[in-house]
């Protein structure tokens, strides 16, 4: 008995059956897509036209700058660079830019809707008795009919895509300043076909197992969304209930909504995130497989379908119950989710009512029989039972996780991750297996904190959250997200000598010394390598630059390195306690407004395909690294420079502030010297100035001058500015009085 599995004639008939839809969509999509490349072509023409006009202007500019080398430069360090830049523009107004994958033929997003519509148009006969009987009376096997029809669907889908892509490829070719690769063309064709496939496969399945349009669409929506929905809710419940499990989010597999093809397309095309059309090729392959599997499943279901299922929302009562239960269960599992997240409150009551509503609505929408709906009400217990099972499984998982409680003797080593590192040593510690007994003991304390639900300290102290992976002697690894108080954490870190290490030279990618001698504006440039870019440009017009000095890039780099070398030597000579103290000051109790070094280290994260820059701070304090501090001070201005600065300020009548800082021992005092507006003399607290030289920082309008002088010398300098009087402590009140009223009796 010959039973062909494909009928050319039926295929042609099927092509014709949906041709109205196909042609309409093809015309719309092709025309709309043409819009972008045509704009590109027009843009090219306009650019060229404008460029013609510009060429003359540019020539003149070039000539002008050649004749007037002193003319004001915009953003270039020297004239030649600028002239080169202008020459480039003369030759070509702009570089041709590549057309992004999602810009090539963006209206093909319509495939998301076109493919399902094709499926509906092709298989709508399944929903009407007359049509269904007619098709089933035709002399073809079910398989043959199905394959012929699906082939027709695919033909239309691919046809529209290829035509539109082809037309656009042709047109983009004429856009002068836009380029595209064959890869873009291919990826567009493949992506949109897979998108269509993915969006319509489930609909085909739905149409095979239901018999009305309403139930088709309901089941379709369910098949598309439920797996991911369930997955997301389950993970969400897990991570909420068991916050001791680190990075549940890392289970963002192919089932997460991030990797839902239509959403990823929207993310890329509309919000311009990601890598073009699709998050990654794995997602594309998965979606293609799902699409094909769904169509295959639909074929099988068609083979066993009964023609009389037409016009019925489900082939029989049992299935009607199953479909409805699927929906109500989907609603019902929100209840354990909500309970886990927020406990039992009004929301839960609301959700329970919602389950009832969905149950009733589904029945009414699909069967339109009130009596049947009422009869089915008792079955509402099924989804509630399933939801309870969902909740219990989460709680079961939690109980299991919380039951894992190793002792110190059971643990071979521990490693840490997922924490904020403050010192370089903590940074080094990341992901390293540590076998030190004390560290293990304290790391386990972190675990017990979570298991015992110890309360976090209320004294305003910090706590450190981190992920600890305990490798047991049995070989098993346990990862938990735990916490310790700040002090405990530091103790843990300090047990390891890594804590005190400084970054190696070769690891450093950037350095900044705050505040850098020179312009206030230039506080932020960093230099470490020879090809460092100095981002702020020294301009003669800047007010502040009169007080500092120019710093060329190489000089800056050399100076940074010299300072760092000095610092390292001095640091190495410190005792362990001193090192700890210095690090403490550098990171926990910053002594404000003094110098510190910021060291930057680059890190490449393979998981997230991103670069991270880590910052570490080392404060420069004269009690620990006096030589370094001195060296830096020596870079600053001398007395003359201060006088110049003060004079300038006074003459310009701009006002400003002068601050003087001294560091006595480990403290520093600060007092303000106000200018024109309040008084013209300075008061200095006598106690601050013992006899002898003091390290003093004078800041004039943000400009830093380090000096080492006696009280008298300082007073002399400042008196150039205005009246200076030196008061001692007891005259504080008078000082205040003067401040307020500008005079003293």
């Amino acid at each position, binding site marked *: 008995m*010959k039973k062909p599995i494909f009928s050319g004639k039926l295929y042609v008939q099927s092509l014709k059956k949906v041709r109205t839809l196909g042609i309409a969509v093809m015309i719309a999509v092709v025309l709309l897509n043409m819009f972008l490349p045509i704009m590109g072509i027009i843009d090219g023409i306009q650019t060229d036209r404008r460029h013609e006009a510009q060429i003359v202007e540019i020539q003149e500019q070039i000539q002008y700058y050649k004749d007037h080398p002193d003319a004001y430069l915009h953003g270039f360090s020297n004239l030649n660079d600028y002239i080169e830049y202008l020459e480039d523009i003369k030759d070509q107004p702009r570089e041709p830019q590549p057309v992004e994958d999602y810009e090539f033929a963006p209206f093909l997003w319509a495939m998301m809707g076109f493919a399902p519509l094709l499926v509906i148009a092709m298989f709508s006969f399944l929903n009407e008795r007359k049509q269904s009987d007619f098709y089933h009376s035709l002399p073809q096997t079910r398989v043959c009919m199905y394959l012929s029809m699906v082939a027709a669907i695919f033909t239309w889908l691919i046809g529209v895509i290829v035509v539109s892509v082809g037309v656009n490829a042709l047109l983009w070719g004429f856009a002068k300043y836009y380029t595209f690769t064959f890869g873009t063309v291919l990826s567009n064709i493949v992506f949109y076909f897979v998108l269509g496939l993915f969006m319509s496969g489930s609909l085909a399945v739905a149409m095979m197992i239901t018999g009305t349009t309403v139930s088709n669409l309901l089941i379709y929506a369910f098949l598309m969304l439920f797996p991911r929905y369930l997955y997301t809710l389950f993970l969400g419940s897990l991570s909420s209930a068991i916050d001791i499990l680190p990075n549940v989010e890392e289970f963002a597999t192919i089932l997460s909504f991030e990797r839902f093809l239509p959403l990823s397309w929207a993310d890329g095309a509309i919000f311009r995130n990601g890598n073009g059309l699709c998050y990654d090729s794995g997602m594309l392959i998965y979606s293609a497989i799902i699409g094909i599997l769904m169509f295959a499943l639909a074929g099988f279901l068609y083979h066993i379908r*009964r023609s009389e299922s037409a016009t019925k929302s489900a082939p029989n009562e049992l299935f009607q119950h199953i479909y409805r239960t699927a929906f109500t269960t989907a609603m019902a599992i929100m209840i354990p989710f909500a309970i886990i997240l927020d406990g039992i409150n009004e929301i839960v009551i609301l959700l329970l009512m919602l389950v009832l509503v969905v149950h009733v609505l589904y029945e009414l929408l699909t069967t339109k029989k009130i009596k049947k709906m009422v009869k089915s009400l008792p079955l509402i217990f099924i989804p509630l039972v399933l939801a309870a099972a969902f909740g219990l499984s989460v709680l079961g998982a939690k109980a299991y996780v919380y039951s894992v409680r190793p002792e110190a003797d059971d643990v071979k080593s521990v490693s840490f991750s997922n924490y904020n590192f403050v010192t370089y040593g903590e940074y080094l510690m990341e992901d390293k297996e540590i076998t030190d007994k004390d560290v293990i003991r304290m790391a386990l304390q972190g675990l017990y904190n979570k298991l015992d639900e110890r309360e976090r300290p209320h004294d305003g102290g910090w706590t450190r959250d981190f992920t600890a992976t305990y490798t047991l002697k049995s070989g098993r690894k346990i990862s938990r997200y735990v916490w310790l108080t700040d002090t405990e954490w530091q103790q843990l870190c300090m047990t390891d000598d890594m804590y005190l290490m400084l970054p190696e030279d070769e690891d450093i990618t950037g350095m900044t010394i705050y505040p850098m001698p020179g312009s206030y504006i230039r506080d932020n440039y960093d230099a470490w390598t020879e090809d460092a870019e100095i981002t702020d440009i020294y301009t003669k017009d800047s007010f502040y630059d009169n007080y500092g000095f120019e710093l060329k890039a190489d000089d800056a780099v050399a100076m940074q390195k010299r300072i760092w070398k000095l610092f390292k030597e001095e640091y190495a000579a410190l005792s362990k306690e001193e090192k700890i103290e210095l690090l403490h000051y550098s990171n926990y109790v910053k002594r404000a407004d003094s110098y510190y070094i910021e060291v930057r280290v680059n890190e490449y994260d393979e998981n997230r395909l991103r670069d991270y820059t880590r910052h570490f701070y080392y404060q420069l304090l004269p009690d620990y690294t006096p030589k370094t501090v001195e060296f830096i001070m020596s870079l600053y201005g001398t007395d003359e420079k201060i006088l110049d600065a003060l004079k300038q300020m006074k003459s310009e009548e701009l006002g400003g502030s002068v601050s003087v800082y001294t560091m006595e021992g480990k403290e520093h005092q600060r007092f303000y010297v106000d200018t024109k507006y309040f008084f013209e003399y300075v008061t200095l607290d006598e106690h601050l100035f013992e006899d002898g030289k003091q390290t003093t920082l004078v800041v004039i309008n943000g400009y830093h001058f380090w000096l080492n002088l006696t009280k008298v010398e300082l007073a002399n300098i400042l008196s150039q500015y205005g009246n200076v009087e030196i008061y001692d402590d007891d005259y504080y009140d008078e000082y205040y009085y003067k401040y307020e009223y500008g005079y003293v009796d």
Partner: protein
Amino acid sequence: MISAKNITMKFDDFTALNHLNCEIPDSCIYGLVGSNGAGKSTFLRLISGVYKPYEGTITVDDAPIWENPEIKSQIMYVPDELYFLPQSNMKTMAKLYAAAYKSFSYDRFHELTKTFGLNPEANINTFSKGMKRQAATILALSTMPRYLFFDETFDGLDPVMRNLVKTVIYNDVCERKTTTIITSHSLRELEDTCDQLALLHKGGIVFESDIQNLKTSLFKVQVAFREAFDRDRFADFDILSFTKSGSVATFITRGEKDVTTEKIRAMNPILLDVLPLNLEEVFIYEMEALGYAFKDIM
């Protein structure tokens, strides 16, 4: 031969056909009567391979019909509710049928279209109900099928058309041994055309017979004797219904007409009339004998 054995067909809780058995020999013109909902359309759909029975087998020449394109291509089923492709005319439908059924004959199609006076270019969906039936009939006949099933189609044709169609069918029966099944409400209609009749009721074939047998197997006897008599006099006759008014008895009996007549004559009646019954009467009495009230069924 079409053979349906032990067929059961259900729709949700409703059993439409219940262990139905039926055999339709080749070149037979088989009439199926039954009230609405008796299961006639269901039966036809089953033997066209549109439905699959829950129980039982349906074979055509010993080959099962389900999912059997070779056999299905020889079957043409004209349903009670007709379907045509949207916005199609008879030409488009003809093309579809020609593509699906190899035996389609354009000659016959043109001939019939002309004879029936239908416009092959006009949109079928604008036709009246009767015209649609005609169109469907033409298309079905044009495929030159071996098996032709008309589901209440004739009820919608006017007598002229009916005769035309009958002529075509008769021609096919002679030439190609076409087997035809016609369902109808009306016995009258089938009486003229069919050679076998069956009554479908409550999911089963209650009664099936050759029409000629039906018409000759039962007859009415009016008899009177000189002496008094009652039913017992005719104890060895197969009597379906007996009434006596006055001295004349009227009864319906089954058997060979000549033999029975002779037997009664031998009893020396003073009055003897042997009359044939029409089909409806036959049905009524047969049903009564079976315990059904024919009026209830039809």
